[in-house]
């Protein structure tokens, strides 16, 4: 039997190859997602809708995934996803977008969807820059990073976006580096199955291969090796003294809960007000 890459079952083969740069970590994100679906026994994505904004990561679902997907405006994936979920709560709505999209221009939507515990899964591929427009400094660019708009190093403090979402009403928050493939896959499975309600947020630390990794004169492999040293499990990270935390990336599941979601609360609200409504 011909060997077949597991991701291909979920990908529109007629639009391959992807537009990603050679070595781009977006492919790893695609694989993690595909394997998560496969291991959960989900082969038919008909009850799933993928929503993305503008940026490199937003290309993962649209046009490549064999599922309904909508490529929206820069930063506006979450409001569109919210609309879809409210119109048809039986759909599983997944947002896949980048840090430039979700943490920058769409930052407001992100925190408010999290505050509402809106029933969507948000996968944020954090490539540390605005990669699609050639790697300008973004709100997630670490201090000291050399980018095309910060030729002598970024002096602004970045967001720790997962920490921000932990502080909201979100049900599930996890962060993984692209080197933590098994954990990432398990995390996606968890957010799709066991913790399938409320706002679920998975941040994936995946530096842009072109404008971060190669821009710093590193190779894709070398960057992965370096990254695996930098990734520290959350429990170990918290034991580190403050001065040693610099440059480390805390990875793990920050939060997993099954609090009532927006849809749950909305249902009971409608129930209380008018005794329920069709379709919800």
């Amino acid at each position, binding site marked *: 039997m011909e060997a077949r890459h597991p991701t291909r079952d979920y990908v529109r083969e007629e639009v391959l190859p992807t537009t990603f740069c050679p070595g781009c970590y977006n492919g790893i994100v695609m694989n993690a997602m595909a394997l998560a679906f496969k291991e959960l026994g989900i082969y038919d994505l008909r009850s799933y809708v993928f929503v993305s904004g*503008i940026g490199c990561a937003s290309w993962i679902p649209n046009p490549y995934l064999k599922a309904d997907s909508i*490529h929206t*405006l*820069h*930063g506006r994936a979450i409001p569109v996803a919210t609309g879809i979920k409210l119109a048809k709560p039986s759909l599983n709505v997944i947002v896949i977008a980048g840090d430039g999209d979700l943490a*920058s*221009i769409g*930052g407001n939507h992100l925190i408010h969807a999290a505050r509402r515990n809106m029933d969507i899964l948000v996968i944020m591929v954090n490539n540390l820059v*605005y990669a*699609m*427009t*050639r790697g*300008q*400094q973004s*709100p997630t660019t670490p201090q000291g990073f050399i980018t*095309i*708009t*910060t*030729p*002598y190093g970024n002096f*602004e403090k970045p967001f720790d976006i997962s920490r921000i979402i932990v502080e909201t009403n979100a049900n599930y928050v996890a962060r993984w580096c692209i080197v933590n493939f098994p954990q990432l896959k398990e995390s996606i499975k968890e957010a799709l199955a066991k913790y399938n309600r409320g706002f679920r947020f998975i941040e994936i630390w995946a530096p842009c291969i072109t404008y971060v990794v190669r821009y710093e004169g590193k190779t894709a492999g070398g960057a992965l090796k370096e990254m695996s040293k930098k990734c520290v499990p959350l429990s170990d990270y918290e034991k580190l003294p403050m001065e040693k935390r610099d440059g480390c990336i805390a990875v793990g599941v920050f939060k997993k809960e099954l609090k009532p979601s927006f849809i749950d609360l909305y249902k009971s609200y409608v129930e209380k007000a008018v005794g329920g409504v069709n379709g919800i």
Partner: protein
Amino acid sequence: MLKPRVPLEEQKVMPVNGDEAVAYAVKQCLVDVVAAYPITPQTIIVEKFSEFVANGEVKTQYVPVESEHSAMSACIGAAAAGARTFTSTSAQGLALMWENLYIASGLRLPIVMAVVNRALSAPINIHCDHSDAYGMRDSGWIQLFVENSQEAYDTTIQAFKIAEHPEVQLPVAVNLDGFFLSHTLENVYMLPDEEVHRFLGGYRKLVKTYVDYLNREVEYKLDPANPLSIGSLDLYDYYFEHKMPQVEAMKKASDVVRRVNEEWYELTGRSYGDGVIDSYAVEDADAVVIVLGSSAGTMKYVASLMRQKGFKVGVVRLRMFRPFPFSEVRELLKGVKVVGVMDRGLSFGSYGPLYLEVNTAFYYSKERPLLVNYIYGLGGRDLSPAMAEEVFMDLIEVAKISEVREHLKFIGVRS
């Protein structure tokens, strides 16, 4: 010919693309604040400019904001505090700025913005058309369109002078075609810095305004020594009156654009028509096209070839779209049999915005040419010389039968 104050041999030739030409122009304009957000095909402008800032080549404060809405907001704040400000954007970025565009013009803040023209979504497209610029036509901004990178450089510098002119005090958008100009290398002549400084009269000069509660004239800027409340609630009692100076300023802008074009000619030896309209072989023409932006180059080239074959055709390039030069267009095209209006963008359910303006220009004149609207180049579709010839031949046919059978035509689209 008059010898320019800075002859060509004293100007520096730089091989730059359109975006870089704008960045180099802004570098020389003593700009206090630049705030912008990356968007293709504008990005190079601010990228290049951030390099000047980082290298200490300019004293500008550069703010890498988190969205275009914030970019325009930051420019409004800076300009209201008296700063000379610049930003640039394209397509969706411009659309996101929309509500702020009206604040900038309504508060009479002379912000300069380079709009690198790109098609609006959906579907997503990063290439050139004028749908973004048409979207802001009613926002009270002066809109200038350039044909090449040299003009992008020249016009960016002129834009500060036009915007800050005491009789104008309005924001100016300099439109250059995405990719066709923004990403194409060209040799551009640049002035020495001090000549640009002299042309602009140094840093931004503020106009004075009488303030009743202070009972004196003060500079129009946010200044704790002379506190002003700007942008306050203004209902049916005064709002209408406060819009009238904007109407007047727009009327005066045409003359200022023309005068600045003349001054530029004296300084550099370069001018673009009369500053408002740049025409080619219109005098004896039977068929003329009106066009905006870089396509004018193709149209002029094809017109010159057709002239050799004996067809009397001409080209009008509008350099200024807002305020619209109604009487100038009417005067220039008096006696022409047929005029083709070329729009790189359209108002769905209507015609191209440029066509509507040209119709208005001719409505009251007795000698009205026949008008045909050609929509071309949406989403960056190239206007080839063959398509340009198709337009001219179509106009010649219309002139022959003296009748327009189809007012709205689409050029270069597959059926």
